[in-house]
């Protein structure tokens, strides 16, 4: 019922935690299920150097948070901003219909990334 990708990111999250002094913070609280994700991001010269998440939610949403962190870390901020929903979807592999909800959350989080969001 979980893809290998979701299962691994859920059971062995590599990016749990919170940055002391993040440059960007993305937040989502789902109005329907109540799941929460908060991603703190450090940016250096347009490049994302460190990403950590806190989350409360279903297995898939916890995996989503970790997958997003892995995906962003090391990327150019502008590349992340420019990513299409389809590119994001690739990171998740096949999702069951209920899990697709989590992809929407990911899209929503990434949409909060603005080039100008770095103070």
């Amino acid at each position, binding site marked *: 019922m979980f893809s290998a990708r979701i*299962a691994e990111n*859920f059971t062995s999250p590599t990016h*749990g935690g919170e940055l002391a002094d993040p440059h960007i913070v993305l937040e989502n609280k789902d109005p329907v*299920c109540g*799941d929460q994700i*908060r991603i703190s991001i450090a940016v250096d010269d347009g490049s994302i150097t460190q990403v950590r998440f*806190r989350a409360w939610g*279903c*297995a898939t949403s916890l995996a989503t948070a970790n997958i997003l962190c892995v995906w962003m870390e090391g990327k150019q901020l502008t590349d992340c901003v420019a990513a299409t929903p389809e590119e994001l979807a690739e990171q998740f592999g096949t999702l069951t219909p209920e899990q697709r909800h989590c992809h929407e959350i990911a899209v929503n989080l990434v949409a909060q990334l603005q080039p100008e969001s770095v103070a």
Partner: protein
Amino acid sequence: MSNLSGYFDYNATTPLSDAVKAAMVDAMEQFENPSAAYAAPDGVKTLMAQARADVAALIGADPEQIVFTSGATESNNWVLRSILECQDRSGAFVTSAIEHDATLASGKMICDQQGRDLRIVSPDSEGIVPASAIEQACQGDVSLVSLMLTNNETGAIQPVREVSGIARQTNAFFHVDAVQAAGKLSVDVSSLCCDSLSLSAHKFHGPKGVGALYIKNPDALTPMIVGGGQEAGLRAGTENIVGIAGMGAAAAEARARLADRTVHVHALRTALLSELHTRNLSFQVNGPSDQAQTALCTLNLSFPGIRAESLVARLGLVDGIKVSLGSACSTNKHSRHSHVLQAMGLDEARLVGSMRISFGRYTTRGDITRLAAALEDGLGVFQRLAAAE
């Protein structure tokens, strides 16, 4: 019994016992049609008679009062249809909010179609439906009252004996869903005073897809499935010989082991609760505070601040431990919360944080420690991940 040590979902279903498997394998050689005219199918008839006697004995019934079905879902549906559709009874259907969907969903469907008065009685916050609340709902013309004996999600034992008196006073037919009680607690139809009672083999180490309906007075029900006249004309269809043999063996075994089982299950529950306390885990029990009102094999817990879906998933993926998020059937649908816990009035956080642990015959003391350790570990992980919230 492959990897049963992590299995804590006995209320969903149980593995076949060795005795049941042996009975089923034997029955595979009994292939002749029980309805055949020639002299030989004595083997099949004896097998059916023995199974019927064993199932009857489990609940203190006469063999003639037992009809085999394809499971308790059919048994429950049958009673509802028979009483609400086929007879000249136009009164209300009174049932509880914590019934299995085999009662609730079919009751809603039938009453909707007919514009019949459906009265759904809520439980108290511990998951027990007060007899007084049923009494109140039983005003005026009531055709059918249906109440489960033991709830599948909380283990709460319902006041069936008292409700039978209420049903009798209103002249209603009284059905009991004893699926989670039979083979686990002592069930006796004459002391319960019910008109019908449903059983499912796979809840007590019998096969899935075979059940029974006890009918006090077999004339009281019209058949739902009509054809070749099997089961004394009450339930047509060539009989599930292998399954029925398995159910009979399971019933005989359950009856013989009942006293041992009670001791075993009580010890496991006590051990689990004490391990959770020792580890300083905070949790709430969803269900009766009084153990005397609980089927002790069921422990429905909420962990505050935790989304049980994740914890259950982690137990499965990391620890190979299987517990249930509410009723197993719900995962086929899109319901968010257990309708049982919701009816008990639990708040959102407690609903979201709830899981059902159920254990039984093959559960060991060591399994309990493994479960407690995995819960401690998982709760720690999720608390750390959520720390900022």
